[in-house]
């Protein structure tokens, strides 16, 4: 069992649920092949530094896991076939120093979710038409008045 980290970028044209689905799919592959998921870090919708497949933005997700070496090949094969994935990269953490950093990153990613969850819907709302945001603002205004 080795420690791995896989970053993948999902197409921004998908809806929030579809993006969730893609992330769930990656997690399912890891679970099926006998890997153990340590943490997931949602970096959210980001601007790409250069266009990939004519897309300017992408939804970044990082998964940290321990797994047998065969899993990585299978996971990468599936990611390659998947047309909704713009880019992916797997990094292996081997020596002591790297493993210490790996543990730290897992911890940081596990601590993050509370804050991330608050951000994620906000990012999703950006995609939605402005109409949905306006009522939210009104609701907030009403609350402050009350």
């Amino acid at each position, binding site marked *: 069992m080795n420690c791995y980290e896989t970053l993948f*970028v999902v197409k921004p044209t998908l809806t929030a649920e579809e993006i969730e689905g893609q992330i769930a799919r990656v997690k399912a592959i890891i679970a099926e092949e006998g890997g153990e998921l340590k943490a997931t870090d949602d*970096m959210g919708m*980001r*601007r790409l*530094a*250069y266009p990939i497949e004519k897309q300017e933005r992408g939804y970044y997700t990082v998964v940290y896991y321990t797994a047998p070496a065969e899993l990585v090949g299978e996971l990468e094969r599936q990611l390659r076939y998947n047309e909704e994935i*713009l880019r992916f*990269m797997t990094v292996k953490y081997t020596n002591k*120093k*790297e493993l210490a950093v790996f543990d730290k990153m897992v911890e940081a990613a596990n601590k993050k979710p509370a804050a991330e969850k608050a951000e994620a819907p906000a990012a999703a709302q950006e995609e939605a038409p402005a109409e949905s945001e306006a009522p939210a603002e009104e609701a907030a205004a009403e609350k402050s008045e009350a």
Partner: protein
Amino acid sequence: MAERRKFKKRYCRYCEQKVDFIDYKDLQMLKFSLSERYKIMPRRLTGNCKKHQEMVTAAIKRARQTALIPYIVDRKRVVENPFELIK
């Protein structure tokens, strides 16, 4: 000359912070070793030690592959504040 003066005091920033491993997702860490055009700055200008220069090089190349930082910034795609965009 102006650029060289910026790096006059030569010491390894990463050694100073006792960095063991440079994560390619940590762009703040990489920023120091990148030029305005996103080239990797040479050791003679940044003062990085060999160990950390190798680490940072690997991290920058990984970040480029995952579109976190651009490979090139050419005349057609010059942006006013390149580092602002990444944040």
